[in-house]
């Protein structure tokens, strides 16, 4: 299965694992299924998925409530092991 979540962001499901790639940040990550659905629901709230991905490997300063909310979610995902960061 292959999805394009939005421009330049791709998702592929391989043997039940969710692989996401952002051509904007050149990051490839494995998402836990739970994380995927949470991210999907965040996307429906018009959050930027690629911005989300870019937060994985950097300490970019977040501005505004939306980004703070996303950062909170991401930190929580990483702590729970929903998200593995590779590159």
């Amino acid at each position, binding site marked *: 299965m292959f999805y394009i979540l939005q421009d*330049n962001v*791709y998702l*592929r499901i*391989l043997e039940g*694992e*969710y692989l996401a790639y952002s051509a904007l940040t050149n990051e*490839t990550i494995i998402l836990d299924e739970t994380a995927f659905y949470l991210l999907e629901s965040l996307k429906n709230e018009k959050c930027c998925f690629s911005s989300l991905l870019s937060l994985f490997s950097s300490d970019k300063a977040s501005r505004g409530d939306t980004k703070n909310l996303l950062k909170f979610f991401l930190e929580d995902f990483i702590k729970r092991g929903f998200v593995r960061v590779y*590159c």
Partner: protein
Amino acid sequence: MKIKEYNRKELKAIFNKGGNIVISPFIVNIQSSLPEVTKSIECLYSDYELITDDTSFTDFYVNICSRLFRWGYKPQARFYTDGRQPFLPLPLSQAFPFFEWGLNWCIAQYINTRLIIHSAVVEKNSQVFIFPGIPGAGKSTLCAALINRGWRLLSDEMAMVDLDNYQVTPIVRPVGLKNESIDIIKSFAPDAVFGKSFLDTSKGTVAHLKPSIKSVEQSTKKGVCRWVIFPEYVPNAKLQLVPISSAESVLKLAGNSFNYNVLGGAGFEALCSLVEKSESFSFTYSCLDEAIMKFNELVEKDGNTHSVYL
């Protein structure tokens, strides 16, 4: 005509002006008046076609030369491609490995019509094995051992994956071996043809193993990747072949790719599709014969590999 059909004097004259060698899928124009370069090409590329007319399209122009005024003091080899010099000079004695490394760079730098993964690639019974790995992982040693036991060489350096059908295009060239690996393969395959050993390079001692005629003759035959094996040579280790998930395999392959990031979504799709059609393993070995036996088992039991896991 093949290179072996020319005598040394003719080759010298051709390479002085620049000769087109067919290193499928590319045509590489090599210009060099350095005797060491000509001798090594004569030895290692003897089964390759040399085109002397000017009508063929040339993919890469490379020139290995030396400056005359430095001949008396630490003579150097210089590498040019398309008239540019991308690297600092190396000692003249390393002129041939400089050509090999430089050509690797040219391909990795300029070929973005295919996904390129740093890996050795071999084939048996139409099943392509990709061995990605960082330098020192043992992929070239494994590759050299396999091709000396009848496997077909597709590449010692890179897997070139087509972006439309995800097939692997061969680029058959001499296998570069380093340090202890040279003697290991020389004793493993006493009939193997080696070029000269180059001492004190940045990688230590380097020597090149000539590819088999069969591999060169089949260098236009593409293959479908069936196995992705991440090798690691560990002295005295017990052989281990451990399955890894497809998603993890994609991430590891991405880390070994030269142009994954350049290709964007097309690269991601190609990697995922390649892995989806393959099985991926991490592989620890210390004995070449055991490793080859294990890969032969995989080939024979294709489609029912669970029984051969360790």
